[in-house]
């Protein structure tokens, strides 16, 4: 058995009792001189994972933080270097060298992280949500303002992005034509109604310069909408590249949202499926734990159509099935494994069919349990089913 102490000054091969047998650099770990020095050892004890993983020779390497020799070395590293090795520096230089070693390693790992496109996906999702918030606010304001000019139109054009585009193109109501409306996807009936009011609207006539300012607001709303679409397209493409299995199982949007929620693919892949099931429902979960209530069955993955459209008494089961496949998919993606996404998806479809056959009817209500709210909801649903 031999021991290796490693640090900013190199690799120190020690005997079982701590005598120095040899001194190497990190670069030597694959060289013959080092391999010769350790080849007769049945086991090597180290206290650090970095050296452990760099030693590729066929010897048993064990990481042990409690080894007394290594512990003594570690706790008093500076004195040990001075007394037992050829290193001669003052304490200030020692710290400088240790720091340079640490900074270099930290910079490398930070950089590696930045290369992970999964974290970029997470950021894009946050950006999408933020744009969406601004879009809702600003388009609401635009509608409010434009209704002063043409309320019959703002009442009929429900889609805020369409409204913005229309105002951007033709802010003056008298210039709006039926063709324009239908070309923007507004259905014929609404379009005719709108046109019938364009010369006798309840709204006021606006001056040219007033319309220009409204138009520029419409431009902003329209731009927000376009940016959001671009980001969504990018997320879709990138998800298919970075996490194809996850994308196949959960869909690109939900998959990306799961990544965004935990921050990166690695952390998602290491969650339990129970945790995945409740991601995004943390508030409800904590509340339930505190008040000993019913724990929520699903969070973000509720947005997967196959989960959301399940009858309510099967939703929890379906969410659980999805969560377990999501974890498998995320791990496949993390380790660059093969593409099994479609297979996993198929299994889930199967499961959904089986569940529906097996439990066509809701369970009998347990009148004593549950909150009055959930009981009410249940009764409501029961009525609806009888219809």
């Amino acid at each position: 058995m031999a021991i290796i102490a490693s640090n900013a000054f190199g690799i120190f091969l020690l005997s079982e009792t701590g005598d120095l047998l040899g001194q190497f650099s990190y670069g030597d770990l694959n060289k013959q001189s080092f391999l010769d020095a350790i080849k007769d050892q049945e086991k090597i004890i180290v206290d650090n994972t970095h050296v452990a993983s760099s030693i590729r020779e066929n010897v048993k390497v064990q990481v042990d933080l409690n080894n007394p020799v290594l512990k003594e070395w570690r706790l008093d590293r500076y004195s040990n270097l001075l007394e037992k090795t050829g290193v001669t520096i003052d304490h200030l230089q020692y710290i400088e060298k240790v720091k340079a070693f640490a900074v270099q390693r930290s910079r490398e790992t930070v950089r590696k992280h930045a290369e992970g496109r999964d974290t970029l996906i997470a950021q894009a999702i946050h950006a999408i949500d933020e744009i969406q918030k601004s879009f809702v606010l600003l388009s609401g304001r635009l509608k409010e303002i434009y209704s002063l000019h043409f309320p019959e139109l703002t009442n009929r054009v429900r889609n805020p992005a369409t409204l913005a585009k229309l105002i951007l193109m033709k802010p003056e109501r008298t210039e709006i034509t039926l063709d324009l409306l239908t070309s923007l996807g507004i259905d014929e009936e609404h379009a005719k109604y709108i046109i019938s009011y364009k010369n006798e609207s309840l709204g006021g006539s606006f001056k040219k310069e007033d319309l220009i300012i409204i138009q520029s607001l419409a431009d902003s709303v329209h731009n927000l909408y376009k940016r959001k679409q671009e980001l969504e397209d990018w997320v879709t493409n990138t998800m298919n590249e970075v996490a194809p299995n996850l994308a196949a199982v959960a869909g690109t949007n939900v998959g990306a949202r799961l990544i965004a929620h935990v921050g990166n693919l690695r952390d998602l892949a290491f969650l339990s499926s129970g945790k995945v099931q409740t991601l995004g429902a943390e508030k409800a979960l904590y509340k339930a734990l505190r008040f000993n209530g019913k724990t929520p069955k699903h969070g973000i993955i509720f947005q997967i159509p196959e989960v959301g459209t399940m009858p309510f008494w099967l939703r929890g089961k379906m969410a659980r099935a999805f969560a377990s496949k999501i974890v498998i998919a995320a791990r496949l993606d993390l380790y660059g494994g093969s593409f099994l996404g479609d297979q996993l998806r198929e299994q889930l479809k199967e499961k959904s069919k089986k569940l529906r056959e097996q439990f066509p009817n809701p369970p009998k209500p347990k009148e004593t349990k549950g909150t009055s709210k959930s009981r009410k909801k249940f009764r409501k649903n029961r009525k609806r089913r009888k219809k």
Partner: protein
Amino acid sequence: MEIEIKPAKKQQGVFRVQGIPGVLLATVNATPSLSVYGERLIPYKGKEYREFSHKRSKIASSILVGLKIPYLKPNAKVLYLGASTGTTVSHVSDLLTKGVVYAVEFAPRPMRDLLELASLRKNIVPIHDDARYPENYSDIVDGVDFVFCDVAQPNQSELFIKNIQTFLKKGGGAMIAIKSRSISQSKTPEQVFDEQQKYLNKNGLEIERSVSISKYHKEHQVFLGKWFGKK
């Protein structure tokens, strides 16, 4: 009111500030004219002091509620777990005029700021790693006099003890800030703190003092103990 700055009675290197609303503690700025997190810089009698925000830092609020941390002395080596962007680490760096602080943080985002801070201050050694695995940075950190842990994780007492066992010198001190809610949602804070203290004692960290800083940091309790080696 006239500004007045005096050494804090209990804590070497920390100063009491009077005459600036909201500012109670300060340290001497090791990088004059540079503010780290938006804290106030206060020139006073030929020196520049930095506001040591008790609202932002759990060490500052502990000192404010009367905790004395004798292990934080100018020549100490300190291991700081959960350094984040270095808000508190920067003040520890101010205090350690002849010492070093090893600052461990695993989230890449705050790590970037920490690396920048470390490039300005000689005595901060930044470590981008997971504090649950001291075997990852055992080739950087050596024997320390003081371990501080503020990682806000449910398992933090465990990793705290593991780091103590790995790096703390016998007779050294260790301090941990615990938020009851991040340990358990269903137990009362009293239960949580009691259990945590028992766990620490059982593992050889003799708790000398425990103070509540809930006035400044919601549901937080701070434990300070002395290490006598593994039991």
